[in-house]
């Protein structure tokens, strides 16, 4: 059956949707426009269009250092989250152990909890354990918070997995290790890539947890935060425009990868599903 319905959409719904899209995109349009504004962030309409802010940006070493730090943090956090999130999803799917219900709640909690609580509680841990705050503590923080994302995505993938394949593999004499790498992982490929991309993006933009775990080296959002607090910085508009363009490319790439395999968008669905368990 096709997804089309017998009734036409009322006109006010379409108007409402246009208004919502305008609301969602207005700040982004403003940000891109003002990255070319000769007078910086003030005044309207933007005047004396210029590439000046981009020129200044490319010579701004601290910003590029923070971009590198953020990429490093995001990559490491992604590794941690996958390394512990995938087994966590497997455990929730196919193992019974005491405290399973509590474990499920704890793993998923950072997904719904305001970042400030995760950040603060971890900063207390590091203080008591006398660990100096640095990029490493931020990596541990992001990794821990984002295990929830890896677990939800992979758990949803496991629900759709046909276990008969794994059983067949084991019956035919493959070891658990072989079965895991040859059957389980390839079947979960899309969930894992999706989780990895999502974790990477979320970590790149994370600020509430980082805020409490920051040492001497800034991540990009914290560098931006510092500059916004100090005052007017049109360079921020320029770097955000560049990052936005890169994100768009990543989205198109991911979208094509996904449509080649299967099409249903699942992020929201998984959140609802996991909430039910």
């Amino acid at each position, binding site marked *: 059956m096709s997804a089309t319905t017998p*009734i036409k959409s009322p006109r006010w719904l379409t108007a409402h*949707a246009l208004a919502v899209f305008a609301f*969602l995109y207005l*700040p982004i349009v403003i940000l891109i426009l003002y990255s070319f504004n000769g007078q910086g962030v003030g005044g309207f309409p933007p005047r004396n269009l210029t590439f000046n802010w981009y020129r200044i940006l490319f010579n701004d070493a601290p910003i590029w250092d923070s971009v590198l730090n953020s990429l490093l943090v995001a990559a490491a956090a992604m590794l941690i989250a996958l390394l512990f999130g995938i087994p966590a999803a497997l455990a929730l799917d196919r193992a019974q152990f005491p405290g399973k219900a509590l474990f499920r709640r704890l793993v998923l909690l950072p997904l*719904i909890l*305001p970042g400030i609580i995760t950040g603060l509680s971890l900063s207390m841990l590091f203080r008591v354990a006398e660990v100096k705050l640095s990029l490493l503590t931020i990596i541990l923080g992001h990794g821990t918070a984002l295990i929830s994302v890896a677990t939800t995505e992979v758990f949803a993938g496991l629900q759709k997995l046909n276990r008969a394949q794994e059983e067949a593999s084991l019956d035919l004499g493959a070891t658990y290790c072989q079965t895991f790498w040859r059957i389980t992982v390839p079947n979960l490929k899309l969930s894992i890539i999706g989780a990895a991309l999502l974790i990477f993006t979320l970590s790149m933009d994370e600020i509430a947890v980082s805020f409490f775990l920051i040492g001497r080296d800034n991540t990009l959002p914290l560098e931006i935060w510092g500059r916004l607090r100090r005052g007017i910085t049109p360079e921020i508009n320029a770097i955000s425009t560049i990052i936005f363009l890169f994100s768009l490319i990543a989205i198109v790439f991911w979208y094509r990868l996904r449509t080649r395999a299967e099409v249903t968008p699942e992020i929201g669905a998984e*959140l609802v599903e996991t909430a039910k368990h």
Partner: protein
Amino acid sequence: MFSRAYRTAITVPPLVWVAVFLLVPYLLMFCYSFWSVSDSGTIVHSWNLDNYHELLNKPVYWQTLLRSMWIAARVMFFSMLLGYPLAYLLSFHAGGRKDLYYQLVIIPLWVSYLVRAYAWKTILGTDGVLNTLLQYAHLTSHPLDFLLYSPFAVVLTLTHIYTPFTFLPIYASLEHIPRNLVEASHDLGATPAQTFWRVIFPLSIPGVLAGATFAFVLSLGDFLAPLLLGGPSGIMISNIVVSLFGAAYNWPLGAAISLCMLTLVLGLIFLSERLEKKWSFS
């Protein structure tokens, strides 16, 4: 079918990690909230209820908490108002363009939270986009200064940030509604409005609850939008926590407030789960 060794291998590592980096920190926060700070600024590990006494006796704390909840409630309401009809339109009337529109809702999430919040500052400021346009259209003779540095600015910005988060679970739950139920309702002579209120809406309640919880809880704990756009009247409870951990250097009191927030949030999640169980049909 899975051996004991396999189950141990998939269970123990995440269990240990979660215990060390989630359970222990929460317990530490609990402990901290019963400790105190000496005059020289060191933490005194003697157990007492002083922090909780202070929270109850100083109106500034619970007043700020109430204001934060009021701001969060408005954000929840408005993101629902924006997100639900959009999700409905996409799920039932978008036809082949569904995936494209879906991506269009997600894409703003890829622009940094901070930068979008800051863009609203450019829009709402006294010489900003909105004020210039209003004056140009002769709708006002002088810049409106209540737009920025007010709870209004915080609600607007947080609504902008969390509308996609409310949209996602609602859309997912609408997508899961079997289409033949909707057709049956039409065939049996129900009007579109009846079909919506009697069939579609009740089945989408799990998504609505998840989206509402997201919007409320995440904006309740926000401290960046109030700092950027809130001004003195837009201060939220997390801002107090941040200052207690920073300049004021009173970690135990900050921990007590955080614990209250945590309890409130867990209570809401519990409530929303109970409601969802009541409403989910399978």
